């Protein structure tokens, strides 16, 4: 079910919230959240809902057994079981065919058969959440959850199930214990602001840029001139930010409506002064997950300069692969890994003027988004050739698309303006009227189904 669908907005959400808040804090609410999340997910596929139940069960039981193990070796063994099962599911559904195709391409013959499995939506998100729970139980950072309901309702809660933020149990532990008896009006006001702003970002900004500029340009067969190539790159830069941060805003709003404050996932990433700074601002829940569960366990910066660089590069390479099984994501991860290495190598040197630093960072990010969006490395190269001016200028494109280019300019300006989390609107009637009208406009724009970009990961 999509947040930006009439079924979700007018049927599912009112029904779930109505039942949820009519109950006292406790198991009743957890059951409502758990069952509604399975309905929310099962609308896409009941088979995948069953898979989610299976992986949830495996992690619940391995965490139990890990907790009960008396020896470090036993604990480590159960942790390995959890990791192998989670990564095994990811490998089978997401990476096996990529591996098989790559091997077959190198061999020039079909050596490895394909599984041809459909990728379950949101699998990368809930798998990472599950893994963080068992790792944190292993590290003694969180207490093991003894009841299946407590664990399952945390892993599956619908506001952030399919595209994050990647919430760790440790982030919500206290909030889940201190459940509010009733929903306060002031919290609903805040939740509405998050939800409406998020929906506006998606359906009023990201979707038109996608359908009018980005998708047709990336679908164009053949060369792109300088102007259309930069339009495609900058268009996707804006589209991805407003699509994903819009989803995250909506998730935060929905979280508030079920009494939970989810962590912030974006903090003006296009204002970043360096690539390291960018990763402190973009998809924060993923970058901190990668830092805590990959980069630091790999050794972080504790084993000398060369090893630090290698760890940075590997972390970003695997972070790229997390997004999808395609060489485009490998190249994207490698690009960011290399940029982080350069960033670390030059940290001791005098800093660039702030504006120049931001511009250079944005340039690296935009260049990266091209290969991230492209269907293949070859297609990305076509766009890069255009961006370098190797295939002409095509100024006529600008003349023919002036209104949309102006719209894109406004969108890019908005992408560096204060974000939803930074905006505190006064609680006044005039604001309520404007928000309601904006919401009504956004609702009319929901008529064309449009999945969020990060659903594919």
């Amino acid at each position, binding site marked *: 079910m999509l947040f930006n669908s009439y079924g979700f907005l007018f049927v599912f959400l009112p029904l779930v919230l109505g039942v949820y808040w009519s109950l006292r804090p406790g198991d009743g609410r957890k059951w409502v959240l758990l069952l509604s999340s399975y309905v929310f997910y099962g609308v896409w596929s009941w088979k995948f809902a069953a898979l989610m139940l299976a992986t949830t069960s495996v992690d619940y039981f391995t965490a139990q057994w890990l907790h009960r193990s008396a020896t470090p070796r036993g604990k480590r063994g159960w942790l390995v079981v959890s990791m192998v099962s989670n990564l095994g599911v990811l490998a089978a559904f997401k990476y096996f065919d990529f591996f098989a195709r790559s091997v077959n391409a190198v061999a020039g013959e079909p050596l490895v058969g394909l599984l041809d499995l459909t990728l379950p939506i949101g699998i990368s998100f809930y798998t990472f959440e599950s893994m963080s729970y068992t790792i944190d139980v292993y590290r003694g950072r969180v207490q093991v959850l003894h009841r299946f309901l407590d664990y399952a309702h945390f892993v599956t809660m619908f506001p952030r199930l399919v595209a994050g933020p990647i919430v760790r149990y440790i982030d919500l532990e206290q909030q889940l214990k201190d459940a509010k008896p009733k929903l306060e009006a002031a919290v609903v006001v805040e939740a509405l602001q998050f939800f409406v702003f998020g929906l506006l970002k998606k359906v009023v900004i990201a979707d038109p840029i996608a359908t009018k500029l980005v998708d047709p340009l990336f679908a164009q*067969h053949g060369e792109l001139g300088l102007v259309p190539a930069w339009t495609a790159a900058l268009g996707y830069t804006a589209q991805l930010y407003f699509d994903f941060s819009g989803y995250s805003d909506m998730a935060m709003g929905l979280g508030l409506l079920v009494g939970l404050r989810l962590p912030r996932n974006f903090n003006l990433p296009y204002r970043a002064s360096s690539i390291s700074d960018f990763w402190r601002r973009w998809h924060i829940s993923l970058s901190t997950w990668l830092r805590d569960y990959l980069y630091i366990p790999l050794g972080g910066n504790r084993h000398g300069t060369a090893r630090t660089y290698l760890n940075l590069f590997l972390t970003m390479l695997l972070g790229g692969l997390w997004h999808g099984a395609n060489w485009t994501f490998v190249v994207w991860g490698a690009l960011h890994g290399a940029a982080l290495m350069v960033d670390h190598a030059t940290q001791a040197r005098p800093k660039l003027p702030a504006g120049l630093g931001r511009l250079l960072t944005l340039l690296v990010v935009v260049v990266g988004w091209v290969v991230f969006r492209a269907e293949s490395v070859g297609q990305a190269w076509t766009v890069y050739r255009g961006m370098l001016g190797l295939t002409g200028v095509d100024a006529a494109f600008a003349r023919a698309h002036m209104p949309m280019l102006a719209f894109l300019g406004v969108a890019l300006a908005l992408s560096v303006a204060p974000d939803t989390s930074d905006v505190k609107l006064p609680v006044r009637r005039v604001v*309520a009227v404007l928000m*309601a*009208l904006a919401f009504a406009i956004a609702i009319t724009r929901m*008529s064309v189904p449009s999945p969020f970009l990060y659903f594919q990961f």
Partner: protein
Amino acid sequence: MDPARRYLRTFAVVLGTALLAIALLNWAVNPYSYYPSAWLRPLTWSTRPLRTEALSGCRGVGALIIGSSRSMKLAPAQLQRLTGLRALNASVDSAMAEDFLALLRLARAGCGGSVKEVVLGIDLEAFHDTQGPDGRITGAPAYWAQLPLPERLRSAAAATEKLLAWEQTVQSLRSLRMLREPLPTPTSRFDDDGFLHYVAWEAQKADGTFKLDTSGQVQAYLSRFAGFKHLSHRRLAVLRTFLEETASDGVRVRGFVTPLHADVLAALRSQRGFDALRSELNAQLADLQREFPHFTAFDASEVSAYGGAPDGFWDGAHVDDESSALLLDGLYGRRGDAVQ
């Protein structure tokens, strides 16, 4: 009262009023003929009510062309020459699998069992797995009544959702603005046998000024295929019902996968999964051919399949008259049913 409560009450009242006003406007103006309401003249031409009317008195029609707008250029006159049967083109805009069945059932009721041949133009996206039925179906109640109950409910839900759609709201306002203006000259019209004429384009072709532009359809088809990952099992089941009903009536069905211009195909191929979808459809059609001896199918997605000219189109999706003639010839043995 608590300011937050006052805020929420105002928000709810304004939002409810705005949505109700938009829904009422769209219901009353009904620019796309989604609803039975006919208070104002529709802005667009709706083919489902037209075809319902044509099929209500089709006694004596022996050959029927069913499909989407991409099959509207198949000439009933040519089909009549090929089969010796009186022919009618009953294709409707954006036909999905459920439309095939509705049209067949209207013909069964209206033609009194005279139909012996059906030419079925199958668009790949007629089996879209995430796109619902066309909301315009509910604007033609007799047509809507031919659908299986789940499809009827889905189309009613689709039309209800459209009450709040941005595009329809814009067109409703446009309709109101145009109330005082004379009706614009239609860009297309049907002959009595359902054959489509693109009035403006045909005039341009006659005076040599026609210029093929595929860009509009490239964009339209990219958005039409958005979210299309697998063939819909539900819609494949509807096609099966279609074949069961034609088999029981002794009607021969010649299907073909409708062509697209190479530019549109290239754009679709640049998206993940298009070729897989096409292969999946061909495999399904091959299975159905084996199961239903009265059914043959022919993949005419690419012009080379029927010997058409690469630019034998009016735009990126609608074949011109010469290509349509080649397609029909192909279906009736000139190029053989063996093409799969």
